[in-house]
């Protein structure tokens, strides 16, 4: 029987959740025995080449590209997992959700203490290639259907490991008190 295939991505995240995945230490050897990876920063495969079994989503949706990638994942993965607080509730990027987008952009490119004076023509990023910033940061499950949620900032390595093992083996997931945390 072929191995289950895993895809991962980081949307509006910091890659901390991917770091936590690597934090399973030597179990990574067991992991590559258990699963194959497709589109993922782990193996640098940029586009889906086949249907995947499990998609791990880090980060929420803060721009149009995030939404596009998330929808691609939904199309190409049988099971989608929101990995970490940003995917689940927007996380720290969602701190901007009460601030108008224009105000955020002006702070970043015109008024912020590190940029003031260095942008005399007051240019805001306007290249057509750039994804459009959304009005706010959306949790992944408000854009597509998400099947499972692994909270944490980042989710602890044991939580990710337990979830992957449970998904691959079909056994019930172990959820000890210490591993399910929101920070």
């Amino acid at each position, binding site marked *: 029987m072929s191995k289950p295939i895993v895809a991962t991505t980081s949307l509006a995240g910091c890659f901390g959740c991917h770091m936590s995945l690597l934090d399973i230490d030597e179990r990574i050897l067991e992991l590559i025995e258990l699963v194959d990876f497709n589109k993922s920063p782990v193996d640098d495969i940029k586009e889906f080449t086949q249907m995947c079994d499990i998609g791990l989503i880090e980060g929420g949706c803060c721009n149009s590209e995030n939404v596009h990638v998330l929808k691609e994942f939904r199309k190409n993965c049988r099971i989608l997992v929101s990995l970490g*607080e940003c995917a689940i509730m927007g996380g720290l990027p969602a701190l901007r959700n009460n601030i108008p987008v224009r105000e955020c952009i002006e702070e970043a490119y015109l008024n912020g203490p590190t940029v003031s004076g260095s942008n005399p023509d007051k240019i805001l990023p306007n290249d057509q290639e750039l994804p459009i910033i959304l009005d706010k940061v959306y949790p992944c499950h408000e854009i597509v259907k998400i099947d499972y949620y692994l909270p944490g*900032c980042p989710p602890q390595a044991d939580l990710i490991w337990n979830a992957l093992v449970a998904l691959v083996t079909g056994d019930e997931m172990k959820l000890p008190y210490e591993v*399910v*945390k*929101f920070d």
Partner: protein
Amino acid sequence: MGVIRKLFGDQGRKTEKTPLQDDPERTASHSSTNIVNTMSEKVKFTIDGKACVADKGMNLVDAAKINGIYIPTLCHLEGVKPAGSCRICNVRINGRPMTACTTEVAEGMVIENNIPEIQEMRKIIIETLFVSGNHFCPACEKSGNCELQALAYRYQMMVPRFPYEFEEKQVDATSPKLYIDRNRCILCKRCVRSIKKADGKSIFAIKGRGHKAIIIIDHKLAEAMTDEEAQRAMDICPVGSILRKERGYITPIGKRKYDTTPIGSDIEQNVTK
């Protein structure tokens, strides 16, 4: 909140408004489990089938506690007149949903606490609180010591079932020792009810009504607070809404209150009676 009102019915509300609650003497008598009154009358009742005994007139949260049973609370504080505002302590008493903190224990009561339906109701309340405020746990100074977060852990909330509101809320950092972050406030009124000056003046108050209600602080009185008083205000806040300045993240991850022990487990392990 409409869902919750439907689920809980209005029975719980009626008990809040019984004349007993407005009688100060009566309130005082059931306010504390520490009062050892050998003369007081005992009553027998059951919680989830377990036979329990407590002093007559004691409120159900405290009565359950001395019998080693945890009923979760967010607005209730031992020794303070119960408010029944958070509804998390809802139990079924003789088949009817009622808030345990505003209910006096009585002879022969049949109480259901850890049954799936009640647990689901509590989870719904927790999830509602998480989406109606802006609870960014990873960045919060109260994380690990937060009662709301600890309840979410206890009831295994992986994600709220409701959409996030991301409502705009203000931070008031004018006072020298404390600041109020209304993004996290759940309006339990613990601070309003229990933080008073020696002359009975309140330092905290509610301003506005309904969803516009906010906690405000009397800056003059807050300025005169001692470090101990400020610490107490921070400690009684069940979330990270009242925080002492310059004291953030003082306990490392792993050593905080609810890092390894679920909320209520001390009560469940400590069957004193």
